[in-house]
């Protein structure tokens, strides 16, 4: 692109002004990238949720428990492929409240990876888990966070579930699972229900909720209704819903993250548009004679328009792409708050949207000055000299 020097020269003219504008655009896109990562962190579960899974919980509240005996009854309902119970354990490592992560006893380890194919565990590690009552499997992110390895013995305390003998719960790491794709939460800690139920001081026979794999996602509503009907009018009535709806409901308790982020970003981009637009307008105004000279040499109106637009796009691209890059690097280093937002990365589709925004911003900020430059009359532009 032989006109590049000319475009580039336009930006070099006022280095301080260009640098300040670049910095604002950089910050805006850094913010954009990080907010997208945060939004993704809040909603990751929803998009990854299995369409073929239901969550069965207590009708009144998620924090109320259900009998473990339901598992066998749910399994018999037509359309159900497999059932697993979970309980919110709230385990804390080394008695340090910050060392908190999702930890759950699961009732049927053999079925775990069948119901949750997004988690990958080597065959021999699964066998070890089935053989070891105190065995636990740990997600890759969590294992890396604390430097745990297979064979480590991990003591956890739970404020909800104290142990009969009063001491800490002890678990043997028998496996470390990975996510089948990017964005899969691998910060979980899963251990065996039999070990848990036998050891706990109270609440024997109770579990938190069930994860149910169904045979046909198209019949999710019918199967959910059948499960709830099965336990209607019992002391423990259930509420069954697709996993995606469940996670979404959970995220919505925190607020409609998406709307808030869009509001913030709109304000940011509006400001940036003014900053970049002003820079371009000034740049063109200062160069009236120069643009006149270029036209006098034979640069066509369209070419002058293109050069100003390219300059504007180069300005936003330099600031915007480095901002997106910085956001990507920061996100790639992992979650700054792993116990709150275990999944933290910048999905490629948001990078794509960001690149689109960079371009749109450049075009919108540059269009008015570019049109002015295009319409500039040579004789008038050159007379400004006199």
């Amino acid at each position, binding site marked *: 692109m*032989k*006109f590049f*020097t*000319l475009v580039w*020269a*336009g930006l*070099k*003219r006022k280095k301080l002004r260009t640098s300040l504008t670049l910095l604002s655009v950089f910050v805006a896109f850094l913010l954009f990238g990080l907010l997208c990562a945060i939004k993704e962190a809040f909603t990751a579960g929803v998009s990854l949720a299995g369409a073929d899974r239901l969550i069965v919980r207590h009708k009144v509240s998620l924090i109320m428990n259900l009998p473990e005996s339901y598992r066998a009854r749910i399994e018999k309902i037509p359309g159900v492929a497999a059932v697993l119970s979970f309980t919110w354990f709230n385990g804390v490592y080394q008695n340090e409240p910050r060392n908190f992560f999702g930890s759950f006893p699961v009732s049927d380890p053999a079925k775990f990876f069948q119901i949750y194919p997004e988690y990958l565990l080597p065959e021999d590690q699964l066998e070890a888990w089935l053989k070891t009552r105190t065995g636990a499997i740990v997600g890759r992110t969590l294992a890396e966070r604390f430097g745990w390895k297979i064979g480590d013995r991990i003591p956890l305390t739970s404020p909800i579930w104290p142990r009969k003998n009063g001491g800490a719960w002890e678990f043997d790491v028998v496996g470390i699972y990975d996510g089948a794709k990017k964005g899969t939460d691998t910060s979980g800690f899963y251990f065996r229900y039999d070990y848990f139920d036998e050891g706990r001081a109270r609440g024997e026979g109770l579990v938190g909720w069930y994860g149910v794999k169904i045979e046909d996602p198209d019949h999710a509503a019918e199967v959910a209704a059948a499960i709830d009907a099965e336990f209607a009018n019992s002391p423990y009535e259930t509420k069954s819903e697709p996993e995606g709806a469940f996670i979404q409901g959970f995220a919505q308790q925190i607020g409609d993250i998406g709307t808030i982020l869009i509001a913030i970003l709109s304000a940011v981009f509006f400001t940036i548009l003014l900053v970049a637009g002003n820079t371009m307008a000034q740049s063109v105004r200062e160069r009236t*004679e*120069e643009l006149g*000279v*270029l*036209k*006098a*040499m*034979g*640069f*066509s*109106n*369209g070419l002058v328009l293109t050069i100003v637009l390219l300059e504007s796009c180069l300005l936003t691209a330099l600031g915007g792409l480095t901002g997106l890059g910085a956001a990507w690097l920061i996100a790639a280093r992992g979650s700054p708050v792993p116990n709150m937002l275990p999944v933290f990365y910048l999905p490629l589709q948001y990078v794509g949207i960001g690149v689109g925004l960079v371009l749109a911003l450049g075009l919108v900020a540059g269009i008015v000055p570019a049109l002015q430059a295009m319409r500039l*009359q*040579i*004789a008038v532009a*050159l*007379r400004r*000299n006199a």
Partner: protein
Amino acid sequence: MTANNGTLVRVQGVDKIFRRGSEEIHVLKGLNLEVPKGEFLALMGPSGSGKSTLLNLIGGLDRPTRGVVEIGGERIDQMSDRELAAWRSRHVGLVFQFYNLLPVLNAHRNVELPLLLTHLTKAERSKHVDTALKVVGLSHRARHYPRTLSGGEQQRVGIARAIVTDPTLLLCDEPTGDLDRKSGDEVLSLLQALSREHGKTIIMVTHDPHASARATRTLHLDKGQLTDEPVK
């Protein structure tokens, strides 16, 4: 592109009227001019008499209100903006009183600008730029930025930029107007050499009799028309 009789520029019955609000300024009135190929013509006249206006019409930077402007047999007054731009890039080299170099580009890049509109490769462009800078005697200043050059040097870069495309016509609007006598003389010698040795057709607007003395012919603009005699 020379017309049969060797006339390069033919201006016939040209009127130029500027409108400023309700006010009309009738700058050129039925003006006629013929410039043969290879001539070095000086245009003189009082300030505001319309010298720059006439030069702009000949260079295709503006259009007459009435009349014919024909260069090398082409009616440039009838061309569209786009056609005019392309025509200028091929046929006109412009030299300005205040040089009008781009301050952010070095001498080499400034001279290269008109060549960006051609299909030449980077290497070919570089060769042309080197030649043009050599003609104006500034090969050793190629990497210098305008602000590090003297006025006379800047104007010579301006001339190099004007001739780098080997245009049919060189139009200079007070090329020595902002220079001291010595630098001015250098620029005038250069223009004279371009005319004599390279056969360039040059039209130069000037206030300076010293400058017009270097030209092959001098015309005076008065009351919208050209005369051979200076205005009393």
